[in-house]
């Protein structure tokens, strides 16, 4: 098939960016979009042109490294998929794909489609953990967790930290990311002793890091590749005020 690409190019944070057009002809629809970019990069290298920088690692939707906007939507807006899981067969022959970096909140462009999401680590550092050191743990089955609770905690724990929620949010808020961790840990009995402190510290840290506040638009939920529900935000806000 034939695909037209319009890709955001920006050498670094301080230089201005621009769109560059490319065309991939006779590519197999069984390739993933990132494999198509790999192919394009091989071509650019042979032509001594600067390859397109984009992030990716596991290429199976679990590490959270990849992510850019495809036609204005984080990860392309396909249900339950990350950028690396988008295959060309999702598009029509001769479609044009516009690829842009995740923007929003304190995310800064590093090069082309690569952005700095290090503020996420700062949010987790502010209490996104259970304070258990090696040696302290009791026998595993002495902590009973009802199946439904374990499942609910899991749904929130599935967050991969990709940043799609921030890129989709009109406020550039990281509230879905922050609340997913609060929900995961606070739902479990092991997480209760630090529940309130965790919620209030993490939410304050999010605001302090330059992300916007949440006004429950719900855009984040629609683009989350792990389908994390908006309900985690309501829960986290309640936990912080408890």
């Amino acid at each position, binding site marked *: 098939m034939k695909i037209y690409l319009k890709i955001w190019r920006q*050498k670094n944070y301080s230089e201005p960016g621009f769109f560059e057009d490319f065309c991939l002809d006779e590519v*197999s629809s*069984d*390739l*993933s979009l990132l*494999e198509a970019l*790999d*192919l394009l*990069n*091989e071509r650019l*290298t*042979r032509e001594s042109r*600067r*390859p397109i*920088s984009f*992030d*990716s*690692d*596991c*290429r*199976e939707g*679990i*590490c*959270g490294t990849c992510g850019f906007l495809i036609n204005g939507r984080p990860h392309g807006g396909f249900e*339950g998929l990350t950028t690396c*899981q988008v295959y060309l*067969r999702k598009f029509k022959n001769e479609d044009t794909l516009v690829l842009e970096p995740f923007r929003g909140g304190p995310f800064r462009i590093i*090069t082309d489609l690569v952005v*700095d999401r*290090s503020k996420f*680590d700062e949010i*987790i*550092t*502010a*209490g*996104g*953990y259970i*304070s*258990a050191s*090696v040696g*302290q*743990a*009791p*026998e*595993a*089955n002495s*902590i*009973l*967790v*009802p*199946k439904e609770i*374990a499942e609910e*905690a*899991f749904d929130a*724990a599935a967050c*991969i*930290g990709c940043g799609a929620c921030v890129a989709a949010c009109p406020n550039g808020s990281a509230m879905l990311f922050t609340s997913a961790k609060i929900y995961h840990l606070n739902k*479990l009995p*092991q*997480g209760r002793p630090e529940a309130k402190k965790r919620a209030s510290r993490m939410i304050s840290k999010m605001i302090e890091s330059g992300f916007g506040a949440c006004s429950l638009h719900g855009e984040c939920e629609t683009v989350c590749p792990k389908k994390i529900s908006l309900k985690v935000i309501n829960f986290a806000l309640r936990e912080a005020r408890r």
Partner: protein
Amino acid sequence: MIPSANIPPGSIDKKWSNFKSSCELVAPANRRKFRILVVGTGLAGASAASALGEQGYEVLVFTYHDTPRRAHSIAAQGGINAAKNYRNDGDSVFRLFAETLKGGDFRSREANVYRLAEISVQIIDHCVALGVPFARDYGGYLDTRSFGGTRVARTFYARGQTGQQLLLACYSSLLRQVDLGNVKIFPNHEMLDLVVVDNRAVGLIVRNLLNGSIHRIKGDCVILATGGYSNVYYLSTNARKSNASAIVRAFKRGAGFANPCFTQIHPTCIPATSEHQSKLTLMSESLRNDGRVWVPRNQEDKSKDPRLIPEKDRFYYLEQWYPSYGNLTPRDIASRAAKKVCDEGLGVGPMGLGVYLDFADAIKRLGKDTIAERYGNLFEMYQSITGENPWEVPMRIYPGPHYTMGGLWVDYNLMSTVSGLFVIGEANFSDHGANRLGASALMQGLADGFFIIPYSVPHFLATNGKNKISEDSPEFIVAEKAVSERIKRVLSYQGNHAVSEIHRRLGKILWDKCGMSRSHAGLTNALSEVKELAEALPKLIRVIDEGEGLNYALEHALRLEDFVKLGELMILDALERKESCGGHFREEFQSEDGEAARNDEEFAHVSVWFNQNGLRLETEKLTFEYVKPTIRSYK
């Protein structure tokens, strides 16, 4: 020379506690004076760094990822083994030990493997305390399932994302130590060399990937937790950035490399469909609990809709060849069986490299809901990659490189032949012999990091004291200069190919001749091909100089040079090991019915390669006191 393996005295069930009660300690007030460098933030690295932070040491952590949470442990699907015997189905520490030893085809150290089994139960306790949302039954107790190579259900799991949940728990635990001021993390920093003085590891040369700056970092000891090297084959189930550079650099600085030819080919990957495919996606081995593996009996049925092939024309080869384990034979055996039926022309799918993994019977027996609960995300993943619906049509799978049992040699304390250089997780060679059982990698990574390193590192520091070599010493300066020059050299290469194209070429040589099956002729041939490739590299590769900014192609080029070096070592090791064992199958050494024929008289040893004045091979003899080596039979 290989140092002593330092196995503690006593009977096998007492060795670890004997070590723990006799090792040297560092007093709490003195711990802050020691600086420990950790490279890698997967299960092993993150758990080691956080456990040492908890003890009060100054810990610096380096990762080439943008955040520690990206490490490839995150992609492990199926589960983690532990001898809890919650099922009351006959499990015990001894049984997990014996099965791991047997699964590894008697090419690992008894004492290490026993300790791993012993620690397994503590791992589950600690992970639950950290908030890992393991699967539970309706009473709220932990659930388990069975895995290949065992006859008990000892695998704890978190849907098909066990690795993710364990890694995120370690990541949280690590960031807690950052919050407490004990650990400092350097994301986007790649280790490019190890600094060794008088055979003691004294520091690292790292490169900041975002701005290209090179730094000298001094430490009192170094822990490498940099994962395995399956990406030497280019196409593997590993993440794109996974690489062998840290261990190859350490090897060049004097660390012995053990059993490089022991690689694991995983039987259940989604088959490759095109030359430009960038990686193989693994489908968890747990699928073999309920899926049945088959190929058509007749070649003419290969392109038929599998649903229309009647039962009598289906060849359930694993169930037929290995009736007692059936679809749950260990990985090496299942992989070779798939290759065998495909070599006979019965493979399905494009290029004829695939076998069916069929859930129709399981769906009929257990209902769609149960199957969805167990494997829902894997079915979705399969569908998104192949465009086929596994609820309707059987999956197609084929073996692919997945894990490397080989790695840097370590003693019982997980220290390499370089003093003060510890190697943990997949990066070392220690516990899996010639084949790793499923759900044991997560177990080993966490055992090493959370439970072993917190004893062996303090023991080393207490015995050897602080490192007195400063970052301004000639050794550090020379090492830094060499790294800068190497980068300049790579940027000057004037070839006509992108790095990935040449990496693919290396991968093909190794996959064809040093992959699932190996022969003297093939290996000899591969050796000269890899040597040629190594020489031709500067004329083949082109890397665009991007100045001080991020340059993924440059990172890849440096890693490729190290992969080429390692490829050569793998081939040499495969040539020297004139027997078949576990994942290492030499065509010349097989039994009458085509199974691996081990040679315990000549090869019950660890092969350790050194890079001092050329390559040199030494061996560490393996002795078996508690489990008598038997011919592995899963029939």
